[in-house]
């Protein structure tokens, strides 16, 4: 029982960041239909920017997180304007190949700048964990979970309760009609990609201090983000959030009670099952996006 409550706590905390990553990608992959291979690199970029701000520039930890997210938003906007805007009428394969190229270039660029030795980001949180009965959690992880939840709520409100969010949903539902209604299509594309990228950078900035920062840290996490998006249904915001938590629980309990050697396989096994029985994802019907 003690072990179970520890597993559940771990999964809940991990699920928050998985959800954040999934939401960022569902905006780009699910709604914009860009197979975004740079998502994991934005995550890595967010982590390195936090490291740079805290360890090199000596900034306050919380300020560093905000800065890293902001720079992530700007980098996302730049990728959209430089790489994707010229390809807006191209097919999905062309943009996919361009994004693979961008992914490789960014990853190798990070390796070149920061080197192969992992970086560690110092935090102001105490190293002694919070202990509640049999469960013990790192203060840093509690902060990460809280921040992730706040970001998810923020992103949800932005998309569902603002004029911009309505413009965004309209654009990706029917681009031509939206344009006729006076929506600036180019701006919406850039802003959506930037928002999704910012969420990835925020996830990286939050998880960088929990783990260590390396140039390849985004690879497995990007794969998981794709899995979460598919699990929740393409373009489904709530689906991606719940999908993130489901993946975390399956991994954690699978590793705890079945076999830790297959921890990362558990999630993908689940996705195979979901796709067999609900090919459009678990929550596809809950929201109509196109």
């Amino acid at each position, binding site marked *: 029982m*003690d*072990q179970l409550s*520890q*597993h559940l706590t*771990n999964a809940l905390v*991990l699920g928050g960041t998985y959800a954040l990553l999934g939401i960022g990608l569902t905006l780009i992959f699910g709604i914009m239909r860009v197979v975004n291979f740079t998502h994991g690199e934005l995550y890595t970029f967010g982590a390195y920017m936090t490291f740079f701000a805290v360890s090199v520039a000596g900034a306050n930890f919380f300020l560093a997180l905000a800065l890293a997210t902001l720079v992530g938003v700007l980098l996302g906007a730049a990728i959209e304007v430089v790489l994707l805007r010229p390809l807006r009428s191209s097919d999905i394969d062309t943009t996919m190949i361009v994004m*693979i*190229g961008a992914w*490789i270039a960014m990853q*190798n660029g990070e*390796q070149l700048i920061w*080197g*192969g*030795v*992992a970086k*560690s980001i110092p935090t102001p949180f105490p*190293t002694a*964990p919070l*202990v509640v009965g049999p469960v*013990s*959690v*790192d203060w840093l*992880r509690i902060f990460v979970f809280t921040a992730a939840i706040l970001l998810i709520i923020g992103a949800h409100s932005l998309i569902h309760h603002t004029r911009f969010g309505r413009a965004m949903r309209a654009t990706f539902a029917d681009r031509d009609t939206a344009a006729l209604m006076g929506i600036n299509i180019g701006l919406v594309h850039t802003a959506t990609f930037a928002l999704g990228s910012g969420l990835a950078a925020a996830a990286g900035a939050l*998880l960088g201090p929990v*783990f*260590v920062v*390396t*140039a*390849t*840290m985004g*690879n*497995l996490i990007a794969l998981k983000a794709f899995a979460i998006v598919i699990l929740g249904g393409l373009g489904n915001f709530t689906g991606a959030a719940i999908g993130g938590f489901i993946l975390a629980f399956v*991994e*954690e*309990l699978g*590793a*705890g009670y079945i*076999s*830790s*050697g297959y*921890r*990362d396989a558990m999630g993908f096994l689940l996705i195979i099952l979901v796709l067999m029985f609900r090919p459009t994802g678990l929550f596809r019907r809950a929201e109509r996006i196109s």
Partner: protein
Amino acid sequence: MIIRTSVAALLMSGAASLLALPALAQGTIKIGVNQPLTGPVAASGQYVTNGARIAADQINAAGGILGSKIELVIEDNKSNPTEAAAAAEKLIVRDKVPVMLGAWSSTFTLAVMPKLMEYEVPMVVETSSSGKITESGNPWIFRIAPTTSMETKDFAKKIDKFAIKRANFLVVNNDFGIDAATKFSELVKSHGGTVGVVERMDPTAQDVSAQLAKIKASDADTLFITTSVEQLTLVLRQAQALRLTQRIITTGGSQAPDQLIEHAGPAAEGSYHLVFFTPWFPENAPNADVAVGLVNEWKKRGYQFAGLTEGFRGYDGILTIAAAIKEAGKAEPKAIQQAFWKVKVKGANGDIAFEKSGPAGKESGQNVPNVYVIQIKDGKVTLPAF
């Protein structure tokens, strides 16, 4: 991952090697170096490569071997077994190296081994510890690193000081980790202890709290951990967050204790580590002059001190290869292979010489290196009280 090199880069490197060939043919002896310079274990591979560079520069400064300078041809195996085999093939076929150093992880080395048989080129194995490497009948393998069995044999002399009653294991899910779990479990059992849970983690996994929660629930006094330094940092931190009180002993010699102190801080406090080189006390090494020389040069070049526990492997590897080429009298694979059996090298770890290991008639070479136990105490690397 899917597209590794752009066409332009391929053409450029092709052109560069064409231009370079005539110049190189005039009198350098090439040695292939196959290490993970990118990917999850990149730090270790870079440390080994830096050690190799120091050895090559020192040899060249002293006049080279057989009247020629040596030249390291360094290939990145990207922390991936498939890439390791491809890098070996490239080194042999395109660069025509007569001998190689590689490939860090047991999994990478095992992937390279069929290529050594195919092209008949010898390789010095500087890090990999899986028993399979020297026991599978590959006569082109010469290992200077200890096998996991050697590590356990050496640790057997000290294990009673730890009075282990019950041990858990957390190992990386590859040849290196699985082999360590098997051999150290046997050791614990043969010294009156029992084994609790044996948990595995993917080499790239960052979150291991699930495994640690299970380990915490299994009542034991000691936790053996086997993995590389990056993952070990995460394990120690997450173990602290879960208030794991089991004594931690790490194996495998790839822990870079200074990096652990820096990155894991108080979480590394009190942990024990089995290492194969002790750069903190080089004057205690069997060949103190060699060890001190390496440590001083490493510091002079501004490499991270933490990397010396890996860097010495590359250094000793190149010293061994150079000795074999000298002994052979020519830079040809077959002659170098024969010469390895005769070399006696004074390395940073200790004296290097090869014993026969594996099936008769196609034995691999295995050196018997030194193993040390250190403890992290008060944020410093210390020799345990016993």
